[in-house]
């Protein structure tokens, strides 16, 4: 346990590193860092995990009081420039059951319950066969950056 991290961030890190969906594909921690606040958003925490076939998964945790925090999950490949935003991927495949899936406020009663429930849900979604093929480096999909119609 890293003494410089607060309990919630440490828990986020622990849950990430215990995701079966990633462990089974050989993902290991490469980097964990605090991303300082920008002019537009407050600070975030980023965990990068890599495996031996050139795949990289980045889980971003952005703590926020009002929604208790949000997550963004990216899948990168050494062979492609643009990452896959996992939420956009789920949406494209019609598998995003809940728009608020990546909001912590959508889960549980206590902080630990929420984190546990979120990562359990994330794990199940990452275990999707098509996504597993991507994580094993056997397949890739182009998911255009979602400008949400603003651009």
């Amino acid at each position: 346990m890293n003494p410089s991290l607060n309990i919630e961030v440490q828990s986020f890190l622990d849950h990430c590193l215990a995701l079966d969906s990633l462990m089974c594909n050989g993902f290991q921690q490469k980097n964990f860092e605090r991303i300082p606040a920008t002019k537009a958003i407050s600070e975030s925490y980023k965990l990068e995990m890599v495996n031996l076939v050139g795949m990289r998964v980045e889980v971003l945790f952005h703590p926020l009081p009002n929604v208790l925090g949000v997550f963004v999950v990216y899948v990168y490949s050494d062979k492609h420039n643009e990452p896959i935003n996992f939420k956009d991927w789920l949406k494209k495949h019609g598998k995003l059951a809940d728009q608020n899936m990546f909001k912590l406020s959508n889960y549980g009663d206590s902080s630990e319950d929420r984190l546990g429930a979120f990562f359990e849900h994330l794990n199940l979604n990452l275990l999707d066969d098509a996504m597993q093929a991507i994580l094993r480096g056997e397949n890739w999909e182009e998911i255009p950056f979602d400008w949400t119609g603003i651009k």
Partner: protein
Amino acid sequence: MGSSLAEANSGWKDDAAKRVTQIERDMLTRLDSDLSKPILVDIDKLLGDLPAPRFAESESTYKFKASDFSATPETKARWMREMMSDPSVGVASNAYKKEVAEKLRISQAAAQSNGYAYAPSTIDNPMGLNNKDRLEVAKYLAGMGGMFNDSALANFTPDMLEQARFISNKPIVQVAPVSTEKTQGVGLVAWDGVVREAPAVAYLRSTGFFDPLKNNFDYQQAQSLSEGLVNEAGGAVIGAGIKLLRPGAQFLKNSVLSEQTLFRMELNGAMQSGLNADLRASTAIGGLDANASKGGINIGALREVEINGTSAKRILEGTNGEIAIIGRSMHGPGGVVDYAVELNRRGYKTHLFAGDEISAASRREWDVLKEVYGDSNGLIPQYRLMNTVGFQENKAWAQKVVNQGYTIVDIGNPNNSGFSVYYATEKKTIFGNVKK
């Protein structure tokens, strides 16, 4: 950690509910004070000082000359144009601001005499709002008083956040210009012969807060310079209202001024596009032929390229033999991606603000904003984007393609989508205006 968050969240609900009640009460009082000052512009005098439209005698002459606007610095047109083109005017504290504020007094009678009117304005009801709407404005102004500042918002539950958004979005509509007549169709400013959506209407639609068509909003097509001016003055009215707020309202002032910055870009664009259309040179000027090749690119042939009805609306000729493409939409029919694919197929080398041009930091920031502030479609309020890494990268990209001599094709807005701060900035950076 978890239980303390839950407890704190519960506490926020109670605390916030109490504050809403108290601040609504306080702000109703403050609203009476702040808005009891009539906001009137001497439209007759303003119009009297503007040059009359002069129409082209041939294709190679101008409808207007730039000097018509700039060579008479004492005219009332000057301050209005300056205010439109300089967002800092809205926040500057100087004699000029006082001058603008003084002159921003919309005369209801004058406006009506031009066949265009704001809702009735009286001392008791200065903005022409009914009691319900005044209450909404009060809630909005309550936000300006500090209720909806960043730290307070951070404490809001999702439901309260939604309410705050709703409250803070609504009253802008109420101070927009309205006509005494209803007309079907899209509001157009046609006083100078240039057909375009009225800035006020375009702005309201683009914010996503309010669609004049869907909401049966009263407006009419501006058929004259005077009507067009009243229409465009709508933004000034909003600005004047904000200026009247007390200093303690700074946070949301800034927020709304960011919205105003967008609005002014739109207004400025409308004004600039009018001038550009008026100053349009004939193809013979400079001895250049429209089909001449430049930088290895046949501009004439490029103009002919059409993909499902989408074609170049304007082209800035470059020198490096490559093409950068901008447009209102990225993906789908009428988007720059489809257009670029077709150009690539025809052998052109194209360049877009996409892929590697968008940094990882920019993606993260965007996706977090989308998650936190996005609506059900992920749409982020555009004023929140102006401080983002991505916005700065987009602006830098636009400057880069100019500096590096790309031929730049603007395919416009074939889908008639709402205002985009990204597209507007690209146009402003590349072409010097935000012409539609």
